[in-house]
């Protein structure tokens, strides 16, 4: 987790056992309830906020299977709010 998500969770990294991205995110917001409105637009529908970016091993999940992307042991999932610079 990075930027505001890191500040809210007061940690940058958690270890989870999950079979997919959506399962990992569900576990994450269960562990840190304050992250739920930062990550999910509609939790019931499992719809992410528009600008939340999720990478799996450095690849944007939108170019994999989106929120349903399968995970395997050792995978690294990075979650960012929108950031920019130059």
């Amino acid at each position: 987790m990075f930027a505001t998500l890191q500040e809210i969770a007061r940690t940058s990294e958690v270890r989870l056992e999950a079979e997919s991205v959506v399962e990992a995110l569900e576990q994450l917001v269960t562990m840190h309830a304050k992250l739920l409105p930062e990550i999910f637009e509609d939790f019931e529908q499992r719809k992410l906020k528009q600008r939340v970016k999720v990478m799996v091993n450095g690849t944007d999940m939108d170019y994999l299977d989106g929120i349903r992307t399968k995970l395997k042991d050792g995978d690294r999932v990075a979650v960012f709010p929108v950031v920019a610079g130059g």
Partner: protein
Amino acid sequence: MRNSRDFGNRAESKCFPEHIQSPVFPGISPCVSGNLFRKKRFYSYTGGESTAKILRVDMNKLKATCEDVPDKWKNLGGRALTSSIVAEEVPADCHPLGPNNKLVFAPGIVTGTSAPSSGRISVGGKSPLTGGIKEANAGSSFAQKLAKLGIKAIIVQGQAKDKCYLLNIAKGKREFLDASPWMGRGLYEAYAQLMEKFGKDAAICSTGIAGEISGAAAGVAFNDIEGMPSRYAGRGGLGAVMATRGLKFIVVDDEGGPGVEIADKEIFKAGTKKLVAALHEHAITKPGGTLSSYGTDALINVINEAGALPHRNFSSGYDELAPLVSGEKKAETIKKRGGERPHVCSPGCIIQCSEVWVKEGGKDPVGVLEYESVWALGPNCGIYNLDDVGELNRACNDLGVDTIEMGDTIAVAMEGGVAKFGDGKRAIELMDEIRRKTPLGRILANGTEFTGKAFGVTRVPTVKGQGLPAYDPRPIKGIGVTYATTPMGADHTAGYAIAPEILGVGGKADPLDTKKADLSRGLQQATAFIDTSGYCLFTAFAIMDIPSGMEGMVESCNGVLGTNWSVQDAVNLGAKVLATERKFNKAAGFTKAHDRLAEFFKHEPLPPKNVVYDVPDAELDKVYPD
């Protein structure tokens, strides 16, 4: 003249085919109807006779005289104006450090008005680093004061024979003072003394020690709001062009100046209101958004995670140590030490991405540590210590060198055995070689490519002789297309494909897709307009996603100039600027062979994704098929 007369006519070509929407301005189709898009005469000046002048500074005669602005340049500012003047007045085949080059300063169209985040100044000339045309820009009160004084551009020409000078400009006053006492002195000390001499409201521009030794990595420094030399038109060696004119400083006082004329105050006000609303709405630029919370350095983690943050001279795209120099870490440290964040680079900025980095105990303020500077002087040199990065950044500001070029240079020197990767203390010692003007310092002050040749290094990350910025192009293809094809040499700001490729701003594009010619071209054109307008390029994050913001930006320019430009006209103006710049470069000897990345990107896979740069040359040539 070369090309600038073309600005008087409406361009026929469109940037994007009719059937697609602009990747730069999603939601805006070219030439749609509506108040902003009505088709009338474009680029026409209807605001009456302007009193703004061009100040021509002849260093041969030590004379500075005001000239009327020719009609062909009346509607230009910033980059469009510097590039038009350079293209018309500088022989493309001249030596950049010789008598025939000129240095041009131009505030943007809306700079000096109440328009938000618009304190930008463009600096232009023939680059000693690339050998082509150069525009570098910075945010500083210097830009606003120049505009408020009624100066649309300064053209510095000739070369003082005996010594170097300080040009002091105020209402009705233009005097040359001997700047010799500041030769060989650091700019932090010099700016403090000049602020004492001319008053704390004075604005200062300068070249440093690196310029004094004609270093092609020398930038042009401007004051920040604390009066420190931390705002830079850094790229391309224009500091050396300034120094070889015999000009060390320009000091500006705008008291009693006429201010910037606004042809239609209602349109201007309506335009700026729309732009402010967009900047306040967008998650990146709004108060408390990521830019004001973490600064530009918030990108360290995201680009590292994407496997595209160059480490140890572009040998890897990821390192687990990167968070130690991230925006998050920096913001936390600044808060603890009593520095400042958020902060502005110039009065009137509502984005506030800047900061004041300080040492332990709040001592020795440096100014801002930008993402590019932190990367260049940090991970690219294997350095993951913010205090070392801060001291290297201080040294760059003090000596007057571009942080990106210097980071690439030190990394190449490390590759060549001059120092070990990760040795921050040795890197600081190398900067001292420049201060002492030693032979090694003179090599380093000439930049990445020069240093690579001196030490027999073949992994030299440059395009047209200019060092690459903080995004490895192997896993992000579009930014590589911009690096290769912009007239500026490797420059991320020239067409920031990172926004759609990584950040999901201004649309979305797969970073590994190699078909990026149209994307890069569109971004380069839009950027050339923003660099002309005087607005900070970071306004683009909001206006790429919020169409009314872009409309407001163009309307505010119309309000100042009395023009009736549409959004498409603005993009067309950007295209004309690029055509002017490319024509200059062609005359200077550039061919398609120069629109290429350094060779190693094609055959050295970048870990952890282990990809090479595989955009075909034919795709690169599609950006500018002329």
